[in-house]
């Protein structure tokens, strides 16, 4: 992975930059010592590491605005960072860039029940949002697996998902408002605690922009009433085809489960050895189907799903009869990543989405590639929305194996695109999938995306080297190409 060539002139000015930042953020908010910088050298994509030039931890919106204005005036790059849990390298530092950590923005500012929303600073964790309102019967729906640690600001930047996306949407579908500091140091408000925006939906494009458009300093999320009843079914199948057909049949029956997860044999065995959730070991695919809502509805749908599962060849069906049992059903799935971590020194988590009916095809292609690369793979899958998480098993201490795992991963993601899917369902492009963007988008498509970037950050100082394989200068992108002189389309009617 090639990052943009660091600007040695900026690195040479490091002392000046540190001094300038200390005038903006007093006290210990500017980190320049190597040992302390080490804590920021990577995010959740630990294969890539880079010491940042400087880390700054502002405490007020005004400080964020002044830091950005300084960076813009002095041509210094900046990488925003929440909790650093990104799995795609979105917060990977730059040798010639400042990492702007928002960890000190950790307060919930307002809980507004009449309007069913919570206003929080970006450094508040995803789980803390739910914890702040659950005693009153509410929760925040998106629940990425890192929800204990990941921040709402990071969730917005990555448009994070979780296991409940099919029914409740991604972060973007649960947001009402944002406060954003632009690279010019302007503080703008997008949305509020009402629905929809008046002009262009800038909140919509900032969400999932991976820190390339601005720095989020406040977030307003919608909260929902906690469903009174939750039950899960654990359904085993002799083949992934049957499991896939069952998922389709559930949706065709008009049922949108709160969660619908699938695991393959390798994943089932890894987690069962680890957490002893009582998963059947003699099946090729396991589905967890969770129904949530009013009690009358949940009990009714549990029965229907049970019937559908049997009609689709399920070899075992169990429905949770207590909250403890439901949590136990989930315990295995939720522990899938650490469980795989036990059976392999390292693993590499992929995140493509496919049209669901292609599941058997892609599983057989992955299995074929697994043999070819000589690397094991365990598959967990947000089955409801076609979001696949193959975990490639490798050992980073064996020379060449990381590269092999990456090549295998790239092959899987390219397959996802070829099958009509996309490179990433919820983890983001970051640096990880940056060079694969060309498999999904043409040069013209990518240039148009970058024109959005130019409207926000014409000097390309915010998180450069992420998402886009080629950095085009904004002046070049701004030009309009017109075929000169003669009329280009002589056969078209003229007005």
């Amino acid at each position, binding site marked *: 992975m090639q990052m943009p060539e660091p600007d040695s002139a900026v690195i040479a000015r490091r002392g000046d930059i540190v001094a300038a930042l200390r005038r903006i953020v007093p006290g210990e908010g500017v980190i320049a010592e190597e040992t302390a910088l080490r804590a920021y050298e990577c995010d959740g994509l630990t294969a890539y590491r880079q010491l940042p030039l400087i880390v700054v931890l502002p405490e007020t919106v005004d400080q964020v605005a002044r830091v950005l204005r300084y960076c813009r005036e002095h041509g210094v790059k900046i990488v925003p960072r929440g909790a650093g849990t990104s799995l795609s390298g979105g917060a990977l530092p730059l040798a010639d860039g400042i990492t702007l950590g928002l960890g000190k923005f950790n307060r919930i500012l307002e809980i*507004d029940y009449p*309007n069913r929303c919570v206003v929080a600073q970006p450094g508040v964790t995803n789980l803390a949002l739910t914890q702040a309102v659950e005693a009153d*019967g509410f929760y925040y729906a998106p629940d990425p697996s890192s929800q204990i640690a990941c921040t709402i600001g990071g969730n917005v930047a990555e*448009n994070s*998902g979780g296991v409940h996306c*099919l029914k409740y949407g991604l972060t*973007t579908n649960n947001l009402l408002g944002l406060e954003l500091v632009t690279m010019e140091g*302007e*503080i*703008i408000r*997008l949305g*509020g*605690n*009402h*629905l*929809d*925006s*008046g*002009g*262009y939906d*800038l909140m*919509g*494009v900032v*969400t999932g*922009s991976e820190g390339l458009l601005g720095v989020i300093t406040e977030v307003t999320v919608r909260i929902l*009433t906690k*469903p009174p009843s939750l039950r899960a079914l654990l359904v085993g199948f002799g083949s992934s085809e049957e499991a896939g057909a069952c998922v*389709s049949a559930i*949706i*065709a029956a*008009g049922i949108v489960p709160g969660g619908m997860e699938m695991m393959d044999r390798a994943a089932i065995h890894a987690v069962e050895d680890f957490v002893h959730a009582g998963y059947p070991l003699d099946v090729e695919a396991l589905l967890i189907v969770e129904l949530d809502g*009013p009690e*009358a509805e949940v009990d*009714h749908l549990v029965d229907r799903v049970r019937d559908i599962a049997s009609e689709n060849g399920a070899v075992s069906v169990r429905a949770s009869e207590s909250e403890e049992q439901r949590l136990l059903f989930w315990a295995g799935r939720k522990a899938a990543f650490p469980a795989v971590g036990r059976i392999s020194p390292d693993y590499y988590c992929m995140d493509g*989405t496919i*049209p669901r*009916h292609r599941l058997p095809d892609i599983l057989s292609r992955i299995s074929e590639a697994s043999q070819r690369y000589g690397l094991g793979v365990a598959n967990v899958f*947000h089955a409801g929305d076609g*979001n696949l998480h193959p975990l490639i098993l490798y050992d980073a201490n064996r020379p060449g194996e990381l590269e092999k795992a990456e090549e295998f991963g790239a092959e899987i993601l390219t397959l996802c695109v070829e099958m*009509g*899917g996309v490179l*990433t*369902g919820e983890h983001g492009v970051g640096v990880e999938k940056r060079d694969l963007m060309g498999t*999904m988008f043409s040069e013209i498509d*990518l240039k*148009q995306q970058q*024109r959005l*970037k130019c*409207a926000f950050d014409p000097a390309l100082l915010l998180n450069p080297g992420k998402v886009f394989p080629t950095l085009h200068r904004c002046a070049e992108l701004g030009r*309009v*190409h*017109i*075929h*000169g*002189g*003669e*009329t280009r*389309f002589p056969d078209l009617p*003229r*007005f």
Partner: protein
Amino acid sequence: MADTIQPADEKGVQDAVAAALSDAMPLEIVGGGTKRTLGHPVSASGILSLSALSGIVSYEPEELVITVRPGTTLEEVEAALADRNQCFAFEPPDWRGLLGSDGRQTVGGVVATNQSGPRRLRAGAARDHVLGARIVTGRAETVKIGGKVVKNVTGYDLCKLIAGSYGTLAVMTEITLKTLPAGEKTRTVLLFGQDHAAAQAAMTEALHSPNDISAAAYVPEAIAGRSGVGYVANSNAAVTAVRVEGPEPSVAARCAALRDLLGRHGDVEELHFHNSRKFWAEAGDVSAFADGSDPVWRLSIPPASAPGTVARIAADIDCDFFADWGGGLVWLKPRGAAEDAGASTVRNAIADTGGHATLIRASEELRRQVPVFQPQPAALGALSARIRDGYDPAHILNPGRMSLQTTLQTTLPTTVRTGEGG
């Protein structure tokens, strides 16, 4: 009258935009022509009609995905979805009565104006259901945005930007939308005789209950009298309504729970299938304000602020109103004709709420004078303008639709002339 060009395919659209670009002759983009009076009047030299770009490209109910050409009528698409017991969850409304237009509305028009009905409260807006598209920008370039699967975060979410941009950034040539199962049953519980504040409190109570409300509205007595639903029209009272949808046993249980809950505030009644559907169609379609040309405002504000906001407006101008989206969407019609259609009163009243007010219906003359869309702070306005310049630098697509500025840009920004001419 401006000439109309009606391309049959995407290449035709691209050629038309390229010609408009090279001639600096702006285009008005039209689908079924049912919403041409939304926004400011467009000053264009020609009309680009997308009605020939029609038809369902693919529909995979099990994937919850449909791809259509923009000129496909909503009627055709909704019929195809209904055949498979699915729907667009955002419940696109029909504003032909409100806007006094005929013709048939298209999917492209619904997406371009981000039009969502009563279920927006629970299911999200039209733009939340746009998964991907092919567009021709004002640079005459054909661009793919988004994908064709329900979960995707690859690159910027440009679908959000295009949806609701009123054709001022790009011309859509293909749209992929998320579909969802239609609720098996629908029922609506009515509560009679509340004033606005009490109704707001009742809706909030219902929405905070675990009954999974899919729509909630408040209709004052004067408006209720215009309903085609007998229970509503003959009630001689203001009506607060909440809807539940889903499987039969669930709907029955929730309906009973809501009758108990709301029954503590006053008399209740319930609407079943046809009546329920009719009531919510009237709310989404703004039927109460159909058949007229007086100004109509649409306010999106924090729901709890609605009673106070409406009271502030009513203190200044005599008006009719009703509220949807749990109270947060207020439809308001001034009774007398104020000089600015009531703009200053309405916008002053919502200023503290952070919400926005759109002048949905007004004469062409008024729409030339009054900001139709909520005016933006300078920094946000400048950012939006730069975004537009990235898509349509020569302002040849629906110029003026979203801003009062209708003057044409006759000189193009930094242009590069290529080729030797022809």
